[in-house]
């Protein structure tokens, strides 16, 4: 097997890694972990969005959302397919792994229960996905993933445009704006948190060392804030963050991290906590973790049951 030093030298020269034969064990591990997060996130977004699709205000709106869900399933397929290529048992990953061990963002465990929440998810969550995958697309050292992401990049922008178009539309009317504001109040901090531990606490430098991705958590979070905060302000929606010209940065108006009540969908800005507390909450998973994972698996389980029954009949005959 190739050594870490050889891999790093190749990356330093701007070369791409193209197959398992060209990876060190540590490189493969960093790639595996990153791909699982990507695949799980895309796949779980499908039942999470489908749950909200029942609230679509028209057939056209429903069809647009179905197209988005279809894109997400396609994106999940890319990540899992690459995992298969590097020797991971994807069938086990999707159908046998306990739901609590899935690696998608906690945000998808909190159900989207109105059309306003659904379109804020498109504007906030899909923009987070666009930032994270756009970074991989532009910077990753793994060739097959980089090439597969060209189309994903454009599709995620479609989802963001869908979210922002609807947010603009809802914000024109006082009732719509109030509902939008309620959704933003819990979804904004949840997406800020999505980008993970701040750089001084981050424990996976391998992802950056091996250039699986190029930008740090704080850089990606800042890049997200730079687009989302001005957009919300432009449509009269308040967010707990503002631009600080002295630092040329967007800063939060609340302590990160702090406590969140997923049942009430309410943040307690007056109760700061530690990142260990957040990691504990993420590990425990949120209210819809098992429901959504099971939804993804239902057809597979049914098929297995029917196959077993058919096998039994065959043996009897």
């Amino acid at each position, binding site marked *: 097997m190739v050594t870490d030093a050889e891999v790093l030298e190749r990356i330093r020269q701007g070369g791409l890694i193209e197959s398992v034969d060209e990876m060190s064990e540590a490189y493969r591990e960093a790639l595996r972990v990153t791909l699982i997060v990507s695949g799980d996130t895309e796949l779980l977004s499908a039942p999470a969005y489908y749950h909200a699709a029942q609230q679509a205000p028209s057939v*056209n709106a429903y*069809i647009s959302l179905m197209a988005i869900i279809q894109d997400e399933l396609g994106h999940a397929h890319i990540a899992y397919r690459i995992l298969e290529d590097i020797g991971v048992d994807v069938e086990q990953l999707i159908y046998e792994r306990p739901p609590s061990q899935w690696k998608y963002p906690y945000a998808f465990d909190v159900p989207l229960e109105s059309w306003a929440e659904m379109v804020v998810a498109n504007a906030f969550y899909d923009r987070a996905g666009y930032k994270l995958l756009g970074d991989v697309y532009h910077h990753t050292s793994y060739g097959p993933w980089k090439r597969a992401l060209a189309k994903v990049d454009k599709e995620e922008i479609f989802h963001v445009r869908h979210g922002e178009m609807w947010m603009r539309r809802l914000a024109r009317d006082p009732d719509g704006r109030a509902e939008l504001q309620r959704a933003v109040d819990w979804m904004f901090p949840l997406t800020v948190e999505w980008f993970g531990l701040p750089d001084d606490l981050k424990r996976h430098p391998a992802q950056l060392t091996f250039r699986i991705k190029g930008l740090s958590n704080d850089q990606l979070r800042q890049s997200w804030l730079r687009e989302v905060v001005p957009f919300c302000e432009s449509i009269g929606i308040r967010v707990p963050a503002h631009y600080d010209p002295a630092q040329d940065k967007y800063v939060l108006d609340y302590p990160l991290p702090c406590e969140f009540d997923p049942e009430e969908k309410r943040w307690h800005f007056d109760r700061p906590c530690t990142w260990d507390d957040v990691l504990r909450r993420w590990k425990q998973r949120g209210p819809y973790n098992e429901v959504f994972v099971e939804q993804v698996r239902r057809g597979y389980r049914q098929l297995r049951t029917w196959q077993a029954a058919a096998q039994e009949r065959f043996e009897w005959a």
Partner: protein
Amino acid sequence: MGVTVEEVWQALQTVEDPELPVSIVDLGLVRGVRVDGDDVTVEVTFTAMGCPCIGWIQEDIRTCLARLPGVGRVEVRVVWDPPWTPADVRPPAWETLARYGVVVRARTRPRGGL
């Protein structure tokens, strides 16, 4: 002084397909423009009857034309005949779409039934 047909086409050039950032004019979705005084009629088609953006694109057309000086009533008419084919995509969009991994350049236009 009303708007001209030419100005309407130019304005529509800025309306993009929500799924891929390509002008709906270059995609060949705009089938015709008529101006009668201040009234504007746009005939538009879609790449498929199950296109996920049928309502969305019509809304974008209305918003775009409402900003144009000299435009009064805007009617967006959906037409399905002749059906859209990849051959309707105009040359400026070929390369853009190819960059996104979408190949549309058909050599011949399919004719007739199934």
